[in-house]
């Protein structure tokens, strides 16, 4: 059975599903039931806390029967006037003491028509804080109210600070720089007559450690209520005031309180819209783009990679050097770029030791779902270690529109026509983009990689298929095994 036959058989098998049509109302109902179970499991204590949260909810919809509090649903938050936050009134309060009113009113909640109309009974208006303290939810625990801002149309946004994570060390003797990752989980709640919802954001315990000294995260809320609100949770420790200008038009301005501000405009889809943030400090106004602020986690940023990712496995120690190492390195880089030009052009040059299956692999890339991203790929040689004047190890990365694929390794030998690379190098890269070589090639790693990651690995399942495990075999013969959930196990059971 070759690949084409396998693909054809998979498509025929998948087609037995026909043209399945879903039932959106069934999804809505299922979600509503889960929320109901969460409330039940959280119990009386949580219900009391929830009741005291001032009617916050988890985005199920507005209270149809709560007409005495009704206001227009079309209230516009764009260009909303800045209102001094009230967080200073209670900056360190935990979730407020119970207020019996929301629980006793127990409004009937109607789902927004946009995702189907389902009426459920109960006190879903109270669910937002319930969700925040749900022990089944990651990051659940004690939350502290650290920010509150009234918004137009009787809306209110609050930030509740939860768990602070220890972000290192990731490996022995190595930890990421403090600015690499936000380390405090928050719950962002919004509540009002028309909208009740909860979202989350990761912020810094001290945002001043970041290169920009500013951090911001987007969140969309209110979508289930048909009243989407785009939030920007901004940290600017030295600022008095911040203004956001979204690329699609809306703006908002507010004061910074204890280094924190939440900016709100009508709309959603915040993750797909760029913005500029004006940060007003005693020294003046600084404007930052969303790209500058989003820098954490950006693997294409060399500074970020150096500070925030574990150092790559070392190349083998250099041996006898070429007469002109710099010129040799430049020639190797040029031939590596030339190899990819040859591959794209279908020219079987001497830059590759074996062209078997390369044309088919590049065709697989060009016809696969990754072709657009692959077309943007630029190979960047990062480090070269000459083992002799005619042999080299090198580390490189692939810069693409979808991110930077670093810590890739190759070897090269000098021939009469220049540096020549093994077939495994392009095969591994083409495989990354959906174009597998046949026969396949093993990944290339320097010897130091195997010292950390093991010489080989295997996976097995028990005879009844219930339990599966994967093991890594290290150079010294020891094994490390994990079950299918990633939990370490002492020793693999007999298959």
């Amino acid at each position, binding site marked *: *059975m070759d*690949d084409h036959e396998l*693909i054809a*058989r*998979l*498509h025929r*098998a*998948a087609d*037995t*599903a026909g043209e*399945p*049509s*879903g039932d*959106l109302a*069934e*999804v809505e109902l*299922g979600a509503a039931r889960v929320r109901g179970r969460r409330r039940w499991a959280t119990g009386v204590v949580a219900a009391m806390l929830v009741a005291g949260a001032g009617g916050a909810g988890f*985005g199920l919809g507005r209270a149809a029967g709560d007409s005495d509090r009704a206001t227009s649903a079309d209230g516009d938050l764009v260009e909303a006037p800045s209102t001094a936050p009230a967080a200073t009134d209670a900056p360190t309060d935990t979730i407020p003491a119970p207020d019996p009113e929301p629980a006793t009113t127990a409004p009937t909640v109607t789902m927004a028509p*946009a*995702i189907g109309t389902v009426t459920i009974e109960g006190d879903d208006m109270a669910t937002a804080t319930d969700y925040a303290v749900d022990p089944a939810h*990651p*990051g659940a625990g004690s939350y502290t109210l650290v920010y509150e801002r009234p918004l137009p149309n009787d809306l209110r946004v609050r930030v509740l600070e939860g768990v602070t*994570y220890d972000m290192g060390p*990731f*490996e022995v003797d190595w930890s990421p720089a403090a600015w690499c*990752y*936000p380390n405090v*989980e928050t719950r962002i709640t919004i509540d009002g007559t028309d909208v009740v919802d909860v*979202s*989350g954001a*990761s912020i810094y315990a001290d945002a001043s450690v970041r290169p920009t000294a500013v951090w911001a995260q987007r969140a969309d809320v209110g*979508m*289930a209520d048909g009243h989407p609100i785009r939030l920007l949770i901004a940290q600017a420790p030295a600022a008095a005031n911040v203004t956001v200008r979204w690329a699609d038009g809306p703006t908002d301005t507010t004061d910074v309180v204890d280094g924190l501000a939440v900016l709100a405009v009508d709309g*959603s*889809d915040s*993750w797909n819209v760029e913005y500029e943030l004006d940060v007003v400090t005693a020294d003046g106004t600084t404007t930052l783009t969303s790209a500058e602020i989003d820098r954490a*986690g950006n693997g294409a940023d060399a500074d970020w990679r150096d500070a*925030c*990712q*574990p150092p790559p496995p070392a190349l083998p120690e250099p041996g006898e050097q070429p007469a002109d190492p710099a010129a040799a390195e430049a020639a190797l880089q040029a031939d590596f770029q030339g190899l990819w030009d040859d591959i794209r052009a279908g020219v079987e040059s001497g830059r590759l030791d074996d062209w078997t299956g390369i044309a088919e692999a590049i065709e*697989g890339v060009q016809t696969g*779902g*990754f072709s657009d*991203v692959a077309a943007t790929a630029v190979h960047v040689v990062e480090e070269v270690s000459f083992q002799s004047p005619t042999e080299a190890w090198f580390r490189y990365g692939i810069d693409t529109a*979808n*991110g930077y694929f670093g810590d890739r390794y190759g070897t090269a030998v000098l021939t009469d026509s220049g540096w020549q690379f093994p077939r495994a190098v392009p095969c591994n890269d083409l*495989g*990354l983009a*959906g174009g597998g070589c046949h026969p*396949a090639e*093993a*990944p290339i790693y320097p010897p130091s990689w195997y010292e950390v*990651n093991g010489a080989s*690995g295997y*996976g*097995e399942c028990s005879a*009844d*298929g219930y339990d599966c495990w*994967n093991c890594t075999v290290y150079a010294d013969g020891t094994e490390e095994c994990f079950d299918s959930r*990633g939990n370490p196990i002492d020793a693999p059971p007999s298959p």
Partner: protein
Amino acid sequence: MVAEVAAGWTMADEQAGHVELSLVPEPESVATSFTDLYTADFGRLVRLATLLTGRPEAARDVVQDAFVRLHLKWASVRNPAAYVQRSVVNGCRSHHRQSARDASRAQAAAQHTASTDALDVDHTFATLAALSHRERAVVVLKFYEQRSEAEIAELVGCRPGSVGPTVQRALVKLRQLQ
């Protein structure tokens, strides 16, 4: 164990349950609402889950459950399309673990003769059932969904370097069942 940090993915996301699947391309038409995403992806995901579970009826349940989970987390999930895809793959793993029928299907597949039966859909399901969930997932994602190895690693939850060997092991098993 070495911690892995994929591009666009942070430990904070992981610990907060907000795993971003940055290598998984956005769908061709980016859904702007839950309804849009559900409408656009439901059929495709059921077909994917059909291959992973071997049963269309179970596949539909897995996908519905994945969308229920997405609905519950809609406000905090940054890449809903990627989230629901990974939910489906994980949901199929749970199904696979609970399905005692797989072993007998594999035995039946091994006893199949080649030629006419080789192209039979049931035989395809049966041979897939002989694979572990991870092997089946990487084969389906690679050869049916045409995913890159990096995407497969993220969707299945393994190291990118282990995708290739897993594919090779799976293909050997499949060929042994021919």
